[in-house]
């Protein structure tokens, strides 16, 4: 990835996406170069196997090319829009192959959790993260350990309440309440940091 292009450079990504809607292939290539490593890192974390993550990345960009016209700049930042597409493609693939991918939640989520927590502690070392990610990381510190883990599991593995309850050895009712309260706390915290 071009180190001079920060992921916060939303305006540049927006310009490219608008051009991609008009089938500008150069803009598409630039958009790919700028965002594929981030999306691929994310997909790899979900799908674990490189070949699956590459298939999902390919499907994501085909979708981005075909649906760029429906991108609404006033509703979503480009990276938010593309991340949603990539995540959906990953989960589609996961459902299709079903039992083939063994999710090693212990190790993989630990990495993500560590990244989340170390960002909050040493914000200076995470220059590559967007402002939104840094804000999210700060707000995550307000949650309980299990609450964080439950939200990360749901986000990264499409896990259901009962799957999370099984993994964390907690009653399903507790998991539901924790996630709901955790999300509510994140919402309030992020709204406040927006105003700050």
């Amino acid at each position, binding site marked *: 990835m071009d180190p001079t292009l920060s992921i916060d450079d939303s305006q540049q990504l927006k310009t490219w996406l608008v051009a991609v809607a008009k089938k500008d292939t150069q803009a598409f290539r630039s958009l*790919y170069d700028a965002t594929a490593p981030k999306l691929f*890192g994310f997909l790899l974390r979900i799908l674990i196997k490189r070949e699956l993550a590459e298939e999902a990345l*390919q499907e994501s960009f085909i979708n981005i090319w075909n649906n760029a016209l429906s991108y609404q700049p006033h509703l979503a930042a480009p990276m938010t829009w593309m991340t949603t597409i*990539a995540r959906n493609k990953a989960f589609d693939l996961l459902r299709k192959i079903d039992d083939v991918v063994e999710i090693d939640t212990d190790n993989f989520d630990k990495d993500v959790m560590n990244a989340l927590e170390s960002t909050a502690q040493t914000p200076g070392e995470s220059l590559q993260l967007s402002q939104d990610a840094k804000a999210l990381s700060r707000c995550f510190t307000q949650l309980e350990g299990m609450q964080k883990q439950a939200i990360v599991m749901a986000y990264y593995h499409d896990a259901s309440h009962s799957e999370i309850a099984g993994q964390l050895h907690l009653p399903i009712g507790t998991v539901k309440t924790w996630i709901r309260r955790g999300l509510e706390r994140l*919402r309030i915290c992020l709204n406040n940091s927006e105003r700050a």
Partner: protein
Amino acid sequence: MNIQHNKILREKLSAAFVLGTLKGGARRRFVSLVKQSAILQAEVAEWEARLNPLAEFAGSAAPSPQVWQHIARRLSLDSTGQQSTKSSWLNLGGSLNFWRGLGVISTALATVLVVVLLTRQPETVAVMPSYMAMLVDDKAQPNIVIVGDAKRHSLTVKILASQTIAADKSLELWVIPKKGTPKSLGLLTKNGTTTFTLPANATPQNVAMLAVSLERLHGSPNPDGPTGPVLFTGAWQQI
């Protein structure tokens, strides 16, 4: 319960939808509600903006260069990112691959001519094929030559470079029109020559290119386009 007028419920469902914990029938019902409601769309977008930065904590990783090549091939862009609807002869002008390709085309044309001459009924006059396409792979290597004969309504496909195709896969030939969806002409014999009926409207005026995709044994389940990767493409031109 009217979700439109219940802010707390809206908030809760949008959050669960974006996080993914809203599942099954409830999720499907929510999706159809979102389609009709600008308020819900905005609510979902807000939750995506809040939670999607979680993806960044996975870190970055470099995908292999093949991913872009596959995307470019599926969307018929060439390797520099140009959409190659123009003649590949023009795009390749001056490059080494062009001359290599031309060499093979000449050889292929000679082969085709020999085939035409040998198989032709003695009473008919030998006519040159009306159209042709040289299908190249993503490295611009010529692999398949296709000739169309308007008079005999035939389309002959000759595989030049022997292909190693898994036993449970097939090669499928597609006509990519300038407007509308791709049309399958059928499966190719894995090595050697296959002959199809030339569709009546398959002139270079209507057809942008021909393509061959790698499909499951009995071809793409989607009649409107390849399901597997597109391996070879070439512009359809008059000769």
